[in-house]
């Protein structure tokens, strides 16, 4: 019961923080170049990691699917199946996990360090609003760049999948690619993108929140990094289910209507 109350408490704090950030965005937006600087930093830092993760995730999915579809004798569909499964579901989730470690943990460590070394208090003392000056550029920068990173990772996963399809399953490239459009329709692509978008939002909110409310010296920074990555992963899994569920509801609704 107690942990339930704690959870609700934390959820409320995060939502209040999010509304504060959005209010600041509405009333006192930060400078555009600060946001662009963040986008550049985050993208450059994390692209190799996400690209690599994406490539291997695509590869793994192809290897697994190759064994399954060969039992059905449907290896022609391998490309379509593996690509669609990667883009709709596994890809965004695993790449977002990777980003929660890379971007999320990094940002909360950076903000936490600023907090425990009194840099955030110093900003307030020098007459600036830390949310406008520090949080908002990072928040927006992370949303934009993780969206790019996730889609980039997905593309790499398609490349990884097709490479493995050719090397491992011995399917020629044309055949691999041919069935992708039949299975991977526009709704699937959209579902993948919506997932990326929502994960980016989750990531940005949680890591800025955790970093901004760090207390307790070097140990505290470590603590908030750990809770950032755990909380982000849990929320991403829940959102994964949520978006899939919503997608099915919408599909059903359109099918009926």
């Amino acid at each position: 019961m107690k942990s339930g109350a704690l959870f609700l408490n934390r959820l409320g704090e995060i939502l209040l923080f999010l509304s504060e950030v959005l209010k600041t965005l509405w009333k006192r937006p930060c400078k555009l170049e600060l946001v662009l600087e963040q986008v550049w930093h985050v993208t450059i830092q994390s692209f190799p990691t996400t690209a690599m993760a994406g490539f291997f995730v695509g590869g793994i999915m192809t290897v697994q699917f190759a064994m399954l579809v060969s039992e059905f004798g449907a290896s022609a569909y391998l490309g379509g199946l593996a690509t669609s499964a990667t883009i709709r579901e596994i890809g965004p989730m695993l790449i977002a996990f990777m980003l929660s470690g890379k971007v999320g943990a990094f940002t909360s460590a950076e903000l936490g360090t600023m907090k425990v070394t009194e840099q955030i208090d110093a900003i307030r003392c020098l007459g600036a609003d830390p949310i406008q000056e520090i949080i908002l550029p990072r928040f927006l920068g992370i949303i934009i760049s993780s969206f790019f990173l996730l889609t980039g990772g997905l593309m790499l996963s398609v490349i990884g999948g097709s490479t493995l399809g050719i090397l491992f399953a011995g399917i020629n490239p044309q055949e691999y690619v041919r069935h992708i459009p039949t299975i991977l329709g526009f709704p699937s692509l959209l579902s993948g993108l919506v997932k990326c978008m929502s994960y980016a939002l989750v990531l940005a909110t949680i890591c800025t929140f955790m970093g901004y409310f760090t207390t307790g010296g070097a140990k505290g920074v470590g603590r908030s990094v750990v809770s950032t990555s755990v909380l982000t992963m849990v929320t991403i899994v829940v959102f994964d289910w949520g978006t899939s569920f919503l997608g099915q509801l919408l599909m059903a609704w359109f099918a009926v209507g």
Partner: protein
Amino acid sequence: MIQYKKLIKSFGTRTILKGIDLHIKAGEIVFILGTSGTGKSVLLKNTVGLMKPDSGEIWIDDENVTDFTEQQFLPVRKKCGMVFQHPALFDSLSIYENIAFGLRKHFVLPENEIKERVEQALSLVNLENVLTKRPGEISYGMQKRVSLARTVVLRPKVLLFDEPTTGLDPVTTNSVNSLIQNLSRKLNTTSMVVSHDMHCALKIADRIVVLDQGQIVDQGTPQELLQSQVPLVRDFLSEARDLL
């Protein structure tokens, strides 16, 4: 200048400040002494609104700032500069940008005037040739002096120091102390210094206030304190005498 009326602040079940009544006059150098964890820093942070008191009032320049919002506090903070215990320099900015940060926020100044004021502030703390460096590239003592310059450059009427000499070598400690003294003599700045260094306090303070367990146990000029009978003050004094 600054007045605290029955200030109370607690964290959870621990009461840190138990009713502080204190009046600081303009142009004074007041040292607040006490052992670690008696709420000295909390008192300073309450003054500029980084924390809110539970009850009591804070008056700055005949203005009750106790219930000010973050926006209302901005002009107050322009008036009261605070130097933090840690240097608290912004890692991502150069020394020059660190010092210019407040100037750009509060005033609209041409770039050459900003440069002039930054250099002036740096020369006040005896630093040169560090403008383009990053905070990580200079020593801790230099960082602390830069953080002092960052506050002084705004020419505040009140300066709040949170342990300005902790972790500094004796030579730098002396120069920081004489800087505090010079600022209040030349620019008529009011200074509030939180410290546990009785030695410095005896040398430069106009008034010394001793805090213990969240309450003021004794206060007075250095001469008056030397005659004090309060045990904690005597402990502080005997330690300072050993140094002399």
